[in-house]
């Protein structure tokens, strides 16, 4: 019985993997993503120049709004990453130290990568040697991932991160279209319509695809 469950899980995982590969191949082939919600066809496309201008204007407005919002005691409600960094330092969490640690791990990784790379060019190198380097590098990568996750959790509520989320939401509003009589038309005419839409599945899927397609985080790198 246990084995049957395991086999079922393995099959499901393989099916998921194939579906994901199919999804990724479609993502590569086109700069638009088509999807269906409740038998209605939708698509997410890249923003036009005019829409990008509108997005950047909205981003600036949102940034100033968050920057200037105060609570009932007259204190600024939202914090920039730099403010949070100082606040965390007062509480014993040193972001600079985390960055330094990340860089040290990066240097250690590069030393091992060089050794592993060189070993791969030698015919005599054994699998044991290669595997040992691989394990060491994997361990360093995992440590780096831990630092990155910790940092993004600490900055989750920063103004910068909220702006990023807002950009994805606004992109979803601007670039989601639906197929009506063989023509692609905008789903929402105004941002208020998007915000008041009760079709959560459509909203969530649109924002997800806006995140995938526009990928503002990757643009920053």
């Amino acid at each position, binding site marked *: 019985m246990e084995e049957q469950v395991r086999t079922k899980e393995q099959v499901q995982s393989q099916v998921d993997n194939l579906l994901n590969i199919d999804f990724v191949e479609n993502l590569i082939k086109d700069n638009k993503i088509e999807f269906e919600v409740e038998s209605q066809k939708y698509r997410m496309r890249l923003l036009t120049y005019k829409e990008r201008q509108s997005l950047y204007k909205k981003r600036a407005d949102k940034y100033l709004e968050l920057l200037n919002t105060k609570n009932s005691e007259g204190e600024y409600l939202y914090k920039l990453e730099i403010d949070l960094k100082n606040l965390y330092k007062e509480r014993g969490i040193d972001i600079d130290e985390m960055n330094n640690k990340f860089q040290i791990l990066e240097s250690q990784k590069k030393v091992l990568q060089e050794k592993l790379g060189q070993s791969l060019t030698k015919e005599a190198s054994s699998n044991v040697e290669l595997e040992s380097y691989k394990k060491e590098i994997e361990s360093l990568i995992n440590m780096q991932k831990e630092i990155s996750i910790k940092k993004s959790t600490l900055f989750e509520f920063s103004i910068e991160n909220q702006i990023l989320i807002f950009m994805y939401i606004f992109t979803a509003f601007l670039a989601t279209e639906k197929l009506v009589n063989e023509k692609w038309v905008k789903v929402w005419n105004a941002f208020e319509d998007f915000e008041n839409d009760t079709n959560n599945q459509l909203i969530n899927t649109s924002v997800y695809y806006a995140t995938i397609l526009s990928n503002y*985080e990757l643009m920053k790198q």
Partner: protein
Amino acid sequence: MIGIDEILSKIRKTSKTTYYQTIYGLDNKHLNIKIFNNDMNLTLFQINFLNCLAMYSAIYMDIYMHEVSDKVLDNEIYEDAYLYYKSKRKKDEKKIPQQKEAPKITSQWVFKQPKRG
């Protein structure tokens, strides 16, 4: 719904396949084979895919030239390590100053050293 990291990893795996490597190889011969439906406005994933195609094409070429073992393709850690080693080696080679060869005498005139008295 899959995350960005997983998408990037799958893009890498897709670009490594014989199918896409063949298309990439043929595209280099200007046969005008289209990989994408769109000609312009590439997404960051499409740009990333093109980079991966070039990266794997270079690795396959190095394997063919016996510069590296085909074990390199066993996993992404080996691939990254090899590419890092290769780029570092190139940088280091550039840093070493080329030794100047002694200039060869091209003139037909031969000047004798004056005899010391």
